[in-house]
């Protein structure tokens, strides 16, 4: 059986194709999200990589903020449940997920059998999300991908006190005007995200193992800083950005199996 999970976020579209709910046949990730051609292009890319056609797919499950608008899907599930499912498959010992995406940050508590026990999300403010990093990268005139290497070169701790994206942007511009090296500013930005998301996690309650997912998980300095804030080891998921789509593909498989069982009865 072939199932496809698609995670349509605010800035990216991710697809995972699974065989029998276990074997990953193909993945794709495009840097355009909901409201664009991204979801369809990502799906076509994954189909092409796997050598499959649309009609070979038994079930498509969509997640992410664009899930409701993806008409090719058989059903939709919130990204929180998909992240829980994906992490539980790869890391059965996981009890806490920290997911930082383009426009929100989430902390999810998992039970021993991988069920979502509770969750909390950031409020409307963009601070502590991928959007915050994008805005800062633009101000610093560096790419998002280069931020990690800049942070690693930081030699001096600089304080970034604002939690609001707009205020922090002004503060970063002031630091640049004062001649503070970009590397130190990037490190300060990373710490500010870690403090905000770490507080969210501490408020909900943290149990080992802590797994980090989402696009921001690619930034190793942020993961390290979150680890410091919450005083726990943070494991960055191997499927970080694809985890939601991976969970969606597993849930798609489970839905088909459940439907088949019901029909058999």
């Amino acid at each position, binding site marked *: 059986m072939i199932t496809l999970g698609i995670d349509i976020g605010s800035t990216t579209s991710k697809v995972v194709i699974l065989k029998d709910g276990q074997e990953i046949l193909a993945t794709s990730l495009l840097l355009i999200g909901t409201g664009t051609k991204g979801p369809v292009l990502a799906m076509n890319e994954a189909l092409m990589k796997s050598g499959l056609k649309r009609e070979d797919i038994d079930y498509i499950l969509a997640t992410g903020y664009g899930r409701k608008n993806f008409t090719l899907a058989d059903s939709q*599930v*919130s990204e*929180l449940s998909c992240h829980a499912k994906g992490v539980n498959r790869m890391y059965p010992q996981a009890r806490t997920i920290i997911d930082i995406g383009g426009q929100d940050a989430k902390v999810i508590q998992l039970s021993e059998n991988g069920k979502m026990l*509770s*969750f909390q999300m950031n409020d409307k403010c963009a601070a502590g999300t991928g959007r915050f990093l994008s805005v800062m990268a633009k101000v610093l005139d560096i790419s998002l991908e280069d931020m990690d290497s800049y942070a690693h070169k930081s030699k001096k701790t600089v304080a970034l006190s604002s939690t609001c994206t707009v205020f922090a942007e002004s503060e970063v511009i002031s630091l640049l005007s004062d001649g503070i090296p970009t590397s130190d500013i990037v490190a300060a930005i990373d710490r500010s995200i870690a403090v905000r998301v770490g507080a969210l996690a501490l408020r909900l*309650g943290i149990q080992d193992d802590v797994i980090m997912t989402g696009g921001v998980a690619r930034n190793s300095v942020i993961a390290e800083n979150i680890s410091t804030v919450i005083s726990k080891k943070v494991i960055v998921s191997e499927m970080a950005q694809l985890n939601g789509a991976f969970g969606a593909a597993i849930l798609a498989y489970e839905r088909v199996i459940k439907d088949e069982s019901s029909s058999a009865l």
Partner: protein
Amino acid sequence: MKAHQLYKQLTEDYYSQAEEAKKEGKLVGWASSNFPCEIPESLSLCIQYPENHAAMLSSKKAADKYFALAEQKGYSNDLCSYARINLGYCETFDSEQRNLVRPDFLLCSSNTCHQLIKWYEILSLKFEIPLFILDIPYQMKGTPDQNKLDYVKNQLDVIIKELSFISHQTFNQSKLDEVMEICKENARLWHSILDLAKNKPSPINGFDLFVYMSAIVTMRSKKETTVFLKKLKEEIENKVENKKTTYPGKEEYRVSFEGICCWPCLYEFQIPLINNHINVVGGKYLDLFALTYSDYPSLIQAYCSIPNSLGIENAIKESREIVSEYQTDGVIFNLTRSCRIWCGYYFALEREIRNGCNQETLLIDSDQADRRNFAFAQYETRVEAFSEMLSEKEQ
């Protein structure tokens, strides 16, 4: 007449009676919603409630221009959105919805919140009218002791004298007793209506109760309210008997709602809940204005024991009672951003209920009246995740 028609008539009367009183040269006052309405009613004084008016304007999506006016005047958008709407409204009194009449005096009690006092002080200065403040001390733990009750009673004695003086009315104990009887009956009826939602499935969509509660906020001292509440109770009892409900769908999950509703997004709030078969069956806010007492001393005790003026221990106790009595599966906590009272301790309260009551919980971000502080997509995602947790729990 059906209950919803009686309710509409009641609302019409509420506004038109104030307009008539003003035309006849009688005094009309504005009061905070938890001020003892029994006092002005016993002196035949017409009262209007700016908090309720602000909620009404926001629910009709007619508040945006008043936010702009208030912010132009220099009021921060971090302030209570009810206050901002009213302070903006007071610049023009020109709503295309129902209008308040200009007040002749103000009654404000501190058992709702302390921002209200500053709001009313501004109104008093603006209109150059007397402001009567009833100071009700915040009670962190337990119930108010006799000293506090005496302190509040002494203030009420003075307020009664001064209201009698400015309105040329003579205070009459038997009239107060009569008004208290009406309030007690209305509170009893409202409680019995809320109790009907304990049936499984509930015969009523919780959001209907959020709408109807306006009667108990603004008109709990009126005989006409008794007629409306009796009819509403009768209609809901019929639904119980006939196994019908006003909830549009199948009630799979029952939840309690903590906090003020987001009035401008009442419809948007319901849709994801209905789509996920979640019905609001109870909530502390629904019960906030129907006070239970037997005599004047216990009336004072009741106004001193409004949840807003009691600490978190009481909030936890009441939330636990609702969860148990209404047999809920989960609790929704609405973080109304411009109301510190109704979101200040919610993170702690949510943790207590999640860990101690076998309830799924959901924290959402909105505001009681400012729709600019509500993001539907985020709300919808959270409700769906909440529903998935409820479903997993069931399995």
